[in-house]
Every structure is written in C-alpha cells, then in structure tokens.
C-alpha cells in the first residue's frame, strides 16, 4: 500500500490542451496527506534526479507520472519505488474530440470534457498506486540442469548448446542409438552459408561431441515417467532399462521430432502397389545405399489425390462414428492426432527434400538423368531459396506446377498424368520411378511424451488445434508451449529442414536458460518478462470450486484432494485468469487486484444528468494488443468519444464479473471489454483469456437481465494490435448504441 505518493505532470508530453496547474491543485486538494508531492515539470525526463531526491527526502513509496503512455518512456524512470503512469497524452489529449464529434479548439481554453477526463484519470492513477504494493519474492532454487527429450538432430544440437552455456544436460532418447531421423540423411539441404549446396551432416561427429561431453548425461532406451513441480525445480522421473531415475531439472527442451505418416494415406497415389512408387524417406534410404537405377524419376509434390481420398474416407468414417458415439471416459485417453493434413504441413520440407534428392540423382548419373518435380506449391523456406535457384539451374531437373490426376503403371514404366501445367498443355509423363512426399507427424500427435504430473493432465492441452504439433503461439513466442518451462524445438513444433532444426534447438535452449534464470529470481519469463508479481490466494475464503485450477491456461495450479488450489508461481505467466475466475475474489496480485481496479472504477465521477453531461462508459482494455492500438490511434489523432474511461487489464481473462457490477452500480452506462481475437485462430497472449472472458460475459449478461439492465450494455469487442484505425470507430459505435439505449437505470441510486 503506497501511503506517500509523488505526482508529477509532464508538460512536454501533455502539451497545451489542458490546464495542468489546475489539475495539479485539484490533485493536491483531493488527496491531501496521501499525495506528498505534486509537481508540474516542463520536461519530465530531465527531472528523474529531482524525483529521486523527493523519494529520499519525503520518503515517498509511490510515484505517479502523468504524461505519455507507459509504453512510451518507461525505461527512463527506473526508480526504487513503485511507479504508475497516467496516460494523458495518447489516450486523453491526443485522442480528444468534443462530445458532438467536432475537433477541439484549444485556443479557446481547455475543453470541459477533456478536463473532466484528465481529472478522472489522475484520480484513478492515484488510487491504483494507493492499492498497490511491491510483491514478495517467489524465487525458487533454479536448478541449472536442462532436460532434453529426444536425441535426434534437434536434441543433439540442443544438448550441445545447453552444455555450452554452462548448464548440465540430461538427454533422453527412446531408441537404442542417438541420431533419430537424421541417420537416414547423410547429405542434408544446405546447413550454412552460402546456402547453395547440399552438405554432409557429419552426424557421427555431432553424436560424439554429445557423448564425449562430461556435462551431458545420455539415457538411451528411455522415456518419461513423469514431470513434477515447476520451472527451476522440476522433478523428472525417467524410465530407463535399469529402472527409474529421478533428476532435478530447471527446464525442458522437447525435441522428440517426427514419425512418417502412415502409408495408407499415400496408397491412393500408388504407394505400396509396386516397386516403382516410393515415398521420399524410402527413396532417400535406397539412394544412399546405391539401389536406385532409374534414370527418369518424377517427384510428385501435388498431394490432391491423397487428400481427396482421405476426405472421402473421413466422410464415411463420420457416418460410422455417429452411430458409435456416446461413450464417456473419466480416465485420460490419448487421442491419435495423425491425419492427412500432416502431408500438407510437410510440403516445405518435402519441396526441399525433392530438390536435394534430385540433386543427388543428377550427381550420381553425371547429369544424364531426367528428374521431374511436379508441385502444387513449391515452398522453399527462407534463405533456402538460394538452394532452389541452384537446383533450378541443373540441366536434368525439370519443374512445373501441375495437377497430378493419376499415377498408373504402363508396361515397365509409370505414367504420371499431369493437368494444368506451366507448359500450357496437359500431358503424360513416362518415368521409371515415382517418388511421393513423406508426411511428418509430430510425436506429440501420437504419444504423451512429457507425462506432466499436473492437475490438468499429463499431456499438452489443445494439441488438436495444431494437429498434434507442440506449439502454442509460434509467431509471438516460438518454442513456447502451454506448459511454462517446457520448450519445443524442431519437427515436433513444425516440420522443418535440418538447418531450421539447428536454429530452433539453439532458440529453445536460450529460452530454457532464460526460464531457469527467471525462476531463480522469481520473475515471469514471458510474455510479461520480468514481472515479479504472482497470484496470492486467501485460502480462508476459498470454497474449492476449482474454477481457477481448471481455467488457468498454463496449468499453473495444482490442487489437493479437497480441491484447494496449490499455486506454482514459476509456472505462472501472471495473466490473472485465476482471479478473473474466482467468484469469492480470494486471488490477488500485490500490484493488481480486484479491489484496486474496483476502486479505480469508483473513482470516476459519473454525472447524474445523462442528457446534459453525457454518459460514462468503462473500457477494460487488454494491455497487450488493445491498449497499444489505442495509443497508436491517439498518436495519429484518431479521436474517440470523451465520455469513455479506459482501464488497462493484464488480459481479458483477468476481468472479474464484480468490476462490471461495480461499474453498473456506480452508474456507468456501459462497459466495453476490448481484447484480442479468440477461437481457433486466437491472438490472445495468454491463449485462453479473451475466450474465457467471452464465456463469462454470457453469465454477466444473464445477471444484468435479471436486474432489469439491458445485457447489451456490456459488450466484448475484438481488436488486433495493428487495427488502430478501427478502434476509435469501435468505441464511437458502442457509445452511440449506449446513447440510443438511454441512461443506466441504476444511475444515481
């Protein structure tokens, strides 16, 4: 609880639209003793030393900086006490327009509605700081040992990299030798600059570097029994041929790779029918062994035939499944997620593989062979474009986009029927051998690999969203899974070429190292990197309803038999979904809690006269995307209605229904929940937050309905970070609907 607050106004950033002196004296009058210092600074950034002096001389324990958005200059104000910001620039002055929608005339003095808004925001800032305190440390021991699951190309790279950072490594491989799928690929697509030529993998050297490293312990023929605890102090049970071994590890790198898609999926394209049709993996092995004599080879990357057959089969299956459905199981059953889509996902890897294998064929025959690559999409990732260019230049390699509609035998040869080709005609291609792509199925699609000993079950959640790939948000946070401290790398995350796997392994190891360091400091790894707060449970009031343990998107909460939550702060990502869920409001963060936001809401002055002084509308805006979008809109002078008050929240998942009731009882006319897109293609940083919020909103609407308040007064809207041009219209549209509805019936009660 901040008891002595210093309030500083930044004239440089606020500009001339507001009477800052008036605002300062208002603040002084209203808060009295609580606010020890109120200063108007010409340039706040030059006043840092003065603020530090004030902190020392006046024993301030909180500083409120009124000026630019907290996103703008936060790095300037590294102060020894709590710092809070009031966003008077982007979301107040810059985004201000008159209630009637006309642009403000600042020459005629500060507009009234703007002054009222600024006053509200400053007061909200003061109360926010008042109800906030520095969290106690949640640091754990932080064991500097990394468990790498999978001893293939990615796992070996990860183990070596992790050892190079100084960590100890435990490498776990289910087979009896290291190397995995890489054992069948002596020559890989380019692994290093200049990315034009295939390269020997030198796998045996990589293996001996790992086995010869004293920091690395290798367990062969091993699998996970369970993973307990939390990042920094995981306890891993490993089943080996000599019994179970227990190891303490700080973090986990998941590099279990892939397994080839079942042959049945490629049977419609002729696989398995004769020796003249192979898949890329088989062909690669035979080529290495010198068993390929064909001089005309067609690589068919167009998989439409297989996809159509699978679609038909799925249709037939669905009819059957309908008849069988209805059985429910309490016990966790792993669903096999292998399916035809894995073939399409693997297209980039197969494109590169086709080029690499074609190159090898040309090498072996001194360019006397004819190799055809028939593709629907030639997808060559990133810099490997250089390899593609080089291969394109090989005389024997002929490529065209084509719809391959039939592959059949014709005498001793195979006939590939091609339509819609770049050659401007449909044709048959007579070849000796047809090579089909290999579907890469992540091991996590078929097996429970990690065996989490977590309340939410032994497997990663929502794997079906990604057809089994262990990935939660690959654009924003690659490597990150839905289980903090476990980082996926390589083909278990996404089909990728071997150079990609190496890069991935390094990235995941860096994440693991960062995770251990963060756990040992008691701070969040991501997305709220460095956040020292964590949820604190007031168990006295807990009713063991299990909502928090079930809703936590990251499985951070375990529980005992009675259902009392057992927090694991190092697993927590600090989104606040738990306290949004809690009907008893027993969960809070030191610097973010129910009472704090409720008090901020109550701090807004809601006028009684709706017609004359306008409505008041609360916006709870997601800090991650919606809030920056609002900032950007402000910076571009995209104004919105001045009757809204914006409160940033960590995630819409942290919105507790009580805030909405607080607002409605206070007399607010509407509440807008502004957050990220949800659903299968969600953009939520915390994966589930906006989705959970949407679900809770239904309950809120029901409650409002019972109370005789139109449920439409609460609305959740989705916005992406780059949609700053749309946000003002969203707000104005909502305000328009509220004005049409008239005042909140509870107003003034």
């Amino acid at each position, binding site marked *: 609880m901040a008891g002595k607050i210093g309030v500083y106004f930044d004239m440089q950033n606020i500009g001339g639209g507001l009477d800052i002196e008036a605002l300062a004296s208002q603040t002084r009058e209203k808060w009295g003793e609580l606010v020890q210092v109120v200063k108007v600074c010409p340039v706040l950034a030059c006043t840092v030393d003065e603020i530090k002096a004030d902190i020392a001389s006046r024993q301030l324990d909180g500083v409120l900086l009124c000026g630019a958005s907290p996103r703008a200059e936060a790095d300037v104000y590294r102060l020894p006490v709590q710092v809070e910001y009031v966003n008077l620039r982007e979301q107040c002055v810059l985004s201000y327009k008159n209630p009637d929608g006309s642009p403000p005339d600042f020459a005629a003095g500060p507009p009234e509605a703007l002054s009222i808004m600024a006053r509200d925001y400053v007061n909200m800032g003061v109360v926010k700081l008042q109800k906030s305190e520095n969290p106690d440390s949640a640091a754990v021991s932080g064991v500097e040992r990394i468990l790498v699951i999978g001893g293939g190309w990615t796992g070996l790279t990860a183990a070596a990299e992790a050892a190079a950072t100084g960590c100890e490594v435990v490498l776990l491989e289910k087979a009896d030798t290291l190397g995995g799928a890489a054992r069948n690929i002596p020559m890989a697509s380019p692994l290093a600059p200049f990315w034009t030529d295939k390269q020997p993998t030198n796998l045996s050297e990589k293996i001996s570097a790992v086995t010869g490293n004293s920091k690395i312990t290798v367990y062969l023929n091993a699998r996970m029994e369970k993973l307990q605890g939390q990042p920094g102090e995981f306890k891993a049970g490993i089943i080996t041929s000599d019994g179970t071994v227990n190891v303490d590890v700080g973090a986990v790198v998941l590099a279990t790779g892939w397994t080839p898609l079942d042959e049945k999926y490629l049977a419609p394209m002729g696989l398995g029918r004769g020796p003249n049709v192979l898949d890329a993996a088989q062909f690669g092995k035979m080529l290495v062994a010198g068993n390929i004599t064909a001089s005309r080879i067609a690589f068919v990357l167009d998989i439409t035939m297989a996809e159509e057959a699978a679609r038909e089969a799925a249709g037939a299956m669905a009819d059957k499944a309908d008849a069988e459905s209805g059985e429910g199981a309490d016990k966790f059953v792993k669903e096999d997620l292998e399916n035809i889509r894995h073939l399409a996902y693997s297209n980039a890897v197969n494109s590169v593989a086709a080029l690499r294998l074609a190159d090898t064929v040309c090498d072996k025959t001194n360019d006397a062979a*004819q190799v055809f690559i028939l593709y629907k999409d030639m997808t060559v990732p990133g810099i490997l474009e250089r390899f593609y*260019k080089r291969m*394109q*230049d090989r*005389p024997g390699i*002929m490529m065209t*986009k084509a719809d391959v509609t039939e592959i059949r035998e014709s005498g001793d040869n195979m006939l590939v029927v091609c339509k819609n080709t*770049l050659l401007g005609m449909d*044709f048959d*291609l007579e070849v000796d051998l047809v090579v089909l792509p290999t579907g890469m199925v992540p091991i996590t699609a078929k097996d429970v690999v990690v065996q989490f000993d977590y309340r939410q079950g032994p497997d990663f959640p929502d794997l079906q969203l990604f057809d089994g790939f262990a990935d939660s948000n690959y654009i924003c946070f690659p490597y990150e899974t839905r289980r903090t401290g476990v980082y996926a790398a390589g083909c278990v995350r996404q089909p990728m070429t071997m150079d990609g796997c190496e890069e991935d392994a390094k990235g995941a190891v860096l994440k693991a190292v960062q995770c251990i360091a963060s756990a040992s400091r008691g701070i969040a790894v991501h997305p709220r990197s460095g956040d020292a707060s964590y949820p604190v449970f007031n168990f006295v009031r807990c009713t063991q309803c299990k909502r928090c343990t079930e809703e936590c998107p990251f499985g951070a909460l375990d529980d005992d038999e009675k259902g009392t939550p057992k927090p694991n702060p190092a697993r927590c990502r600090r989104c606040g979904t738990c306290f949004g869920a809690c009907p008893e409001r027993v969960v809070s963060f030191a610097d973010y809690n129910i009472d704090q936001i409720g008090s901020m809401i109550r701090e807004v002055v809601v006028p009684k006269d709706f017609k004359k002084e306008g409505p008041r509308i609360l916006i709870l805006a997601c800090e991650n995307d919606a809030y920056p979008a609002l900032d950007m809109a402000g910076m571009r002078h995209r104004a919105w209605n001045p009757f809204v008050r914006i409160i940033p929240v960590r995630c819409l998942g942290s919105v507790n229904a009580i805030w909405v009731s607080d607002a409605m009882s206070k007399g607010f006319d509407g509440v807008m929940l502004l957050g990220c897109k949800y659903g299968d293609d969600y953009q939520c940083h915390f994966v589930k937050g906006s989705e959970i919020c949407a679900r809770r909103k239904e309950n809120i609407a029901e409650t409002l309905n019972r109370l005789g308040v139109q449920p439409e007064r609460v609305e959740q809207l989705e916005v992406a970070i780059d949609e700053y041009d749309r946000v003002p219209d969203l707000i104005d549209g909502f305000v328009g609907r509220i004005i049409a509805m008239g005042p909140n019936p509870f107003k003034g009660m």
Partner: protein
Amino acid sequence: MAQCILKPDLQFAQELRESGGENLKKCFQCATCSVACPLAPANAPYPRKEMVWASWGLRDKLRGDTDLWLCHNCGNCSDLCPRGARPADVMAAARTIIYKELTSPSIVGKWMSRASGLPVLFLIPTVLWLVVWWIRAGYNNGNWFPRAADGRIVFGQIFYGDYTIDPIFMLTFFGACFILYCGVRKLWDMFRPQGKLLVIGKKKSWFCHLIDVLMEEVVTHRKFDDCEDGPITGKAPSNRKWGHAVLVWSFAILAFVTAVVALGHWGGKIIPVIEIHTPMPLTFPVKILANIGALMLFCGLAVLTARRVSLDSANHGSSFYDWYLLGIIWLVAATGMLSQCFRLADAVKPAFVVYYFHLVFVWMLFAYLPWSKLGHLVYRTAALVYVRMYGRS
C-alpha cells in the same frame, strides 16, 4: 484419357544453352517477360511458355511456335527478368537453331554455329575468287594488277562482269533463293498444326499478306516502335529502330542500284540507250544513289554496333551469330568503300586486293544468308505472313 506423352530432350536444351541461351534454366516462370513484351498477344503470350519449353527441351513445341518469329528481340523481357534468365537471348537461340536445322545442306549450318567454323566459311570464297583472279591474270599477260588502256583502274579487267561476277553471283543468289524457298516451305509445314486448319472469315492469298507485311511492318519498322513503347526498363532507349531501318533501307537501295546496273549492262546489249558503263562517274545519278546507300549502310551499322557493344552484359548476351552478321556487313561495306577510294586514288595494288576481299565478303553474305542471322529477313517475313494468314498477329 490418353494424352500426349511428353519426351523431354535434354540434348536440345543443351544446344539452346550453347547457342546463346545459357541462362534459360534460371527462369522460374513468373511471367514478367510475357507482361513486359509489348508485342506479345494477350492470348497465350510469349516468351514465358517458350522458356519452360526450352528448359524441358521440347524441340517440337519450339519448332512449331510462330511466336518465336513475332519477337523482334528488343530485350525488354531480359531487362525486366528478375532472375537474369535472358528470355530474349533464349528466343534468339531458338531461332538460330531453327535456321540451322531448317536449311540444307546442314553442314553449313554447323560451320555457321560457332567461331571455329569461320575459317572454312572464309576459305571457300577466298579460293573461288583467287582462282578467278589467277585465270583472269592469265588473260592480262600474267599481270595481277593491270590497268586499262587509258591508265584507269578498272576492276572489270580482272573480275570481268559478264563471265565471272555475274554468273557466280547469279548462281549464288538464285541458289540461296531456292534454299530459302525450301526452308520457308519447311517452316510453314512445322507451323501447321496436326489435323485440319479451318480459317473462318475472309481469306487473302499469301501474296497479299506478304505485300501487307512488307508495307506495314518491314518498310515502316512499326513493330520496333511498339518495342520501344514497352514498359520502362530503366535503360536508356536505344536507337535500334533507326539503326535497323537505315540498314534495311540501305540494303534496299543497294539492291536497287545493283538491279539497275545489271539491267543497264545486260539490257544495254539489246537496247543501247540504257547501257551503263562501269565504273560509273561519281556524278552519275545511279552512282550517287549507290554512295548514299553505302553511307546509310555505315550509319545503320555504326548505330547497331554501338548498341550491341553497350548492351548490359548482365541481361543481354551477343552470340556468334550476332557478331558474324554485323562483322560481315561491316566488312562488305568497308571493303566496298575502300576499294572505291583506292581506285579513285589510283593505288592499283591495294585497290585490287581490297576489291577481291570485297567480293569474298559479299559472296559470304549472300551464299550463307539462309543459315546466318540474316536469314530472319526471309524467315521472319515468312512467319509474319503465316500468322497473318491464320490470324495471330
């Protein structure tokens, strides 16, 4: 349903690469070239499709492709190609191979296709005219550099028109014409698709189309304007149209002069009034016209040579065919002009030697025309006539 079975011929692709299309495999089928080409028709434009046919070695597709001949080789496509595949050079290489294969005896085409064949090509007329010189020197009392009775230098004393130059050149000329005629017949057969070709609408005879092509395209060089109206390539506009047009017109003038002189000479034997004596005085109208033609020849050549020298080698290559043609015309023009100068300067030995080489080069120009790049004079015209007959232009 049975479709055609494709038979890629990598040997053919290799030949194309050797004939100037060495970058053809770089093409990744983006079709920038087809969009860039100001001449390509909207329906199945070129040269994108020719590029993939070339890289797959589809000989028959390229042989039957009239579009190869619609291309006027402005190089916009090569300038704009994002991969440096040089479509213009590939098209030129394909035409070159077709000259070579179309025209028999094909051994000449083989000599013509690379610099190493040049000595043979050169040796044939050298020996031919040396023999003529030797024989005629015998008639001049063994004097290889005789003067006329009045002391002037008269080339006719050695290279006597009636018995040496005229029969040899007439034979060469009509022989070339015959070879070209056979070539054009073959070319049209290659263009003709399998099955029956039905032309709907008003038909004109090939001769009317030929006149149209000559009047609308060859004389005016209209297509060259279209080329220059193409997309902005960032390259300074060349004087290609004027260089080429002046060259073509000078050829026309020199052909006309030759025809007049031949008519005057042979016709004069029957109707004495129109008799023309060579060498003609410098002020004689036909002589004036001849020298104007020669000057234009130099101008056109200079422009085209300068252009070819300054071509951006990153996007354009010049093959042996290109240099052979420019070189041979330069040599014809230079030896022609020089021999006249030496004659007027009364330098008897240089005059005869240079004139001898002039004859060698002129013979090379005409005799090898069907296999050389100059063949486009006939083959492209024939192709343009064909496409007009069947409605793709």
